[in-house]
């Protein structure tokens, strides 16, 4: 990097510098899940494209009894669960951010309670969704 192109303004402090607490944790995790969700929606969109034009459709439909087929399925379930949790978390925390944007919920206790509430509701909603999906799929 040449000196000429360097922006003279300071960068954001890197994440390792902060002490852990609920407000920073929820904020950092909001960005992290945002990045994850961005790449997920890109991947899902291209999967829809592949599905539409029936590219490798034979391979998609075909299923074998090979042991790694189960392994791949479990990995896919785990990835889907992670994406759904990230989605719920970003959704709930996004609502919290929207309330902050209209000037509500800035009191320290309120903000901290909301932070815990966001994490708990994201976990509960994920369990409910996966539970319903598994119930409809396997029962």
């Amino acid at each position, binding site marked *: 990097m040449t000196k000429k192109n360097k922006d003279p303004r300071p960068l954001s402090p890197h994440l390792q510098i902060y002490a852990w607490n609920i407000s920073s944790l929820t904020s950092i995790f909001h960005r992290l899940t945002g990045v994850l969700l961005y790449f997920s929606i890109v991947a899902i969109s291209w999967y829809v494209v592949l599905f539409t034009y029936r590219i490798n459709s034979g391979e998609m439909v075909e299923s074998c009894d090979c042991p790694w087929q189960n392994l791949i399925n479990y990995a896919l379930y785990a990835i889907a669960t992670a994406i759904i949790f990230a989605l719920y978390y970003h959704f709930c925390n996004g609502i919290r951010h929207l309330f902050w944007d209209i000037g509500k919920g800035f009191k320290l206790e309120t903000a901290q309670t909301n932070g815990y509430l966001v994490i708990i509701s994201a976990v509960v909603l994920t369990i409910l969704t996966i539970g319903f*999906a598994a119930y409809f799929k396997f029962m």
Partner: protein
Amino acid sequence: MVKKIKIAPATKTGAHHWLTQRISAIALLPLIIWLLLSFVQIVQDPQEYMPVFFAYPFNAVMGILLISASLYHGSLGMQVIIEDYVSCKIKRHFYIMLIHFISITTAIAAILAIVRLHLVG
């Protein structure tokens, strides 16, 4: 002696960026609920539901709206993260353009696919 910091001229796009980020977030709220309800429905039997899912006009419209809104919201968010953590101005602009390229290409391809699934199946 305090060194004077040269500040880059304002591009006057910050307020628009902030506002569109919030508007797309609000637009995504009902779309995400639709996505999760559809997910629970589709996983029951993907082989049966996937081909006919976008034949319903409601699903096709919601799908196109979801892809546009989420990729727009996503590129705005990724732009902020890149601006926060990439110092070199050339790399910064390159990454932001790359994100915009990925978003626009993905959006056009996915919308075309949904239209095709809706009309042709």
